[in-house]
């Protein structure tokens, strides 16, 4: 059988515990007092028996007869009527006995057969339903001490008994007093402890009341100073405070994100709405309508991109599913895909992308090229004139078209190095790029493939957007023990020192004056960070804004734990 113990309040448990301890100690007190009282009372009883027996001995007198015998003079004896006694002489002659006793014939310990037993022996006797303690003493009486030779000494044996019921009665009285006292204390201290505990737990209840007042609208939690200094409450108080602070921070972040997202979305919608209303403000020529429609389409592409990025961020920030096999993807393959997706952007900006070590891109070339050509995205950026649309289009492919490298779309902007990371690479020409003999470095990282590609393409797109024409963006993949390290380096204008801590913030755009013109939603780095964080990795960004230094530009370093 299994019992479920109902959780009780701490106060109740404490009261029960204290009362149980009290009860046990009361019982102990009663037992101890019983022993002590018995000892005490029986010692006094023995003394009394001795005293009375001695007074009996005092009543033994010279019988004034010829044999110089002794006799018991009972006339002067003042002893309690319930006591019993017998006096024997050395010859076994009964000198006298109390009236209420028929003799020791019934007495096992002090019978006539044992008149010479040891003196001072106390034996128990039951008489008329009463328990008696019987003391035997050997006494001597000197007859005619004034005569020559000191007179004659007669030995007598006195048996003196007294009922023990009085003693027991006294002992019981004392024990009863202790027991009653303990019980009374128990009854009094029970409610007292309850009251004291109630008072003692007051700070805890106050703390709970304060904590219960905290809500999403009011994060005020001001525990009294005593709660912080009380040893029992301090850990709870501190834990509550830190939890609330963290909660508040994340809640405010969330709220800020919602507010920012609302702002971005409303602005995007406002753009679209105003474009359409502007178009309908007056009659226009078909060419004007066409141009207006194209602008509206571009606006909705931006809105689409914003929504896609927000969804990607939400997905990247949601906790990884615990069921199913852990995701695993080759980072090198992701780099290859991302480079392929963004080569059109690189071509538009006239920026070279340098991958080290290059991945082996032969094999699926033709089918991928076909897929790439078929995608609507490609059409849109082939006809599009502006860079941001190409970027949009390329970004849109992340979700839909898993494009890989195709020889048909490879331009001179893509350079691949066959050298491994430790050997200084030489830039190869286009032929080398088209037929790389690179050693493919495999680095399997715990990420879903689409997230991994998104991570790399986000970072690469960022680098491309901030690269001046004719410059190079480098991607380097190395392995350190259990970590894959991806370094993406551009030779762009860099990031201002004061902007650097904020670049991973959502909707933060590093360069305010050019923020909107370079396109982008301000979510790319936030998404990248969320993806890296989810995989248990780290991302850091370093920048050298000084254009006079050869090392100027921005370097993003991603460290991901390798799965295999």
């Amino acid at each position, binding site marked *: 059988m299994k019992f479920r113990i109902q959780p009780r309040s701490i106060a109740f448990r404490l009261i029960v515990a204290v009362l149980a301890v009290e009860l046990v100690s009361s019982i102990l007190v009663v037992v101890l007092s019983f022993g002590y009282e018995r000892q005490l009372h029986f010692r006094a009883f023995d003394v009394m028996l001795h005293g009375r027996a001695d007074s009996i001995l005092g009543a033994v007198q010279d019988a004034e007869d010829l044999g110089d015998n002794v006799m018991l003079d009972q006339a002067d004896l003042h002893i309690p009527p319930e006591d019993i006694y017998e006096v024997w002489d050395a010859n076994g002659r009964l000198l006298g006995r109390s009236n209420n006793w028929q003799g020791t014939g019934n007495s096992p310990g002090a019978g006539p057969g044992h008149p010479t037993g040891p003196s001072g022996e106390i034996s128990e006797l039951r008489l008329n339903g009463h328990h008696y303690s019987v003391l035997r003493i050997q006494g001597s009486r000197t007859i005619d001490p004034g005569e020559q030779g000191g007179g004659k000494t007669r030995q007598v044996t006195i048996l003196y008994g007294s009922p023990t019921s009085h003693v027991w009665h006294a002992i019981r009285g004392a024990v009863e007093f202790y027991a009653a006292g303990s019980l009374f204390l128990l009854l009094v201290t029970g409610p007292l402890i309850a009251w004291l505990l109630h008072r003692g737990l007051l700070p805890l209840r106050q703390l709970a009341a304060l904590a219960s007042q905290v809500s999403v609208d009011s994060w005020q939690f001001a525990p009294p100073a005593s709660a912080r200094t009380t040893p029992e409450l301090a850990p709870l108080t501190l834990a509550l405070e830190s939890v609330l602070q963290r909660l508040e921070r994340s809640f405010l972040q969330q709220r800020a994100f919602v507010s920012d997202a609302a702002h971005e979305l*409303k*602005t995007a919608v*406002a753009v679209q*709405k105003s474009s359409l209303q*502007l178009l309908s403000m007056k009659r226009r020529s078909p060419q004007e309508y066409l141009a207006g429609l194209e602008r509206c389409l571009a*606006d909705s592409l931006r809105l689409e991109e914003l929504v896609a990025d927000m969804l990607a961020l939400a997905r990247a920030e949601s906790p990884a599913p615990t069921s199913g096999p852990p995701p695993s993807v080759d980072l090198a393959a992701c780099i290859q895909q991302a480079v392929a997706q963004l080569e059109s952007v690189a071509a538009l900006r006239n920026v070279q992308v340098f991958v080290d070590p290059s991945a082996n891109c032969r094999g699926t070339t033709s089918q991928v090229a076909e897929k790439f050509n078929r995608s609507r995205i490609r059409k849109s950026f082939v006809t599009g004139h502006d860079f941001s649309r190409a970027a949009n289009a390329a970004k849109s492919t992340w979700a839909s078209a898993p494009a890989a490298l195709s020889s048909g779309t490879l331009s001179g902007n893509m350079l691949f190095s066959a050298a491994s990371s430790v050997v200084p690479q030489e830039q190869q020409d286009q032929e080398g790029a088209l037929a790389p003999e690179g050693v493919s470095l495999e680095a399997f990282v715990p990420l879903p493939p689409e997230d991994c590609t998104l991570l790399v393409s986000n970072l690469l797109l960022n680098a491309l957007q901030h690269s001046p024409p004719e410059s190079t963006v480098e991607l380097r993949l190395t392995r350190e023990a259990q970590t894959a390290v991806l370094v993406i380096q551009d030779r762009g204008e860099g990031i201002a020192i004061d902007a650097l801590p904020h670049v991973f913030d959502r909707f933060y755009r590093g360069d*305010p004056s050019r923020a909107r013109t370079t396109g982008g939603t301000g979510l790319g780095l936030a998404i990248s960070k969320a993806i890296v964080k989810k995989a248990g990795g780290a991302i850091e960004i370093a920048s050298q804004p000084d254009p006079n230094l050869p090392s100027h530009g921005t370097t993003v370093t991603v460290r991901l734990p390798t799965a295999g």
Partner: protein
Amino acid sequence: MRVLLVEDEVRLAENLATALRDGPGFAVDWAEDGLIGDDLARNACYDLIVLDLMLPRLDGLSVLKRLRARRDATPVLILTAKDGADSIIQLLNAGADDYLAKPFDLGELIARAKALIRRGKGAAHPTLNVLGLEVNTLEQTVRRQGVLVDLSPTEYRILEYLIHRPRVIVSKRELLEHLYDYNWEHHSNVIEVHVSNLRKKLDAALPEAEPIVETMRGRGYRLAPSLPSQGPDQSPAPEPAP
């Protein structure tokens, strides 16, 4: 009328500028962040400032506060994506005259912009009746003593500006500042030609009346030189020329 548009979203700014130019015929200057907006607003040549709230470098509320701290009374229309009465109360208390929540209606924006400019110049009704001239700012039509006067857009804009300040000498420079944005080459003789044409057209409508636009040589132009005011016209308190 000249409007300063402070908005960081390029496409939205383009659309708004086009709408304000094409619709009511305002001159529009565009600032893409708060600092530039604040700088431009210091020129004090604007009849309205359309201000976005979330701006890079300096947010809209700060721009507004700086503006009002300089005792600049230019009407300010706030564009906001924020919801909530608190934010709106804060804005209005900081000196904003009106606000529009994104996404807004372009027609509403233009109507509010016109109303704010009108109010800023002391007129309540969109139709202004001054010195026998009736200017309907909604239809952009002008009548002199009931006779319709056909004006070119520039001539109309000059008259619309002058009619808000009757009997006050308006310098050529002031006219230029309020009618053209900063991309425009400021040739004062362009204004002279337009004012001359405007006067001719107004006088042609009512040949027997005295010329209504007076040229004060070297000082500027004045609407209604010697005529006493007629009827219940809304003559705003004369403002010092900027």
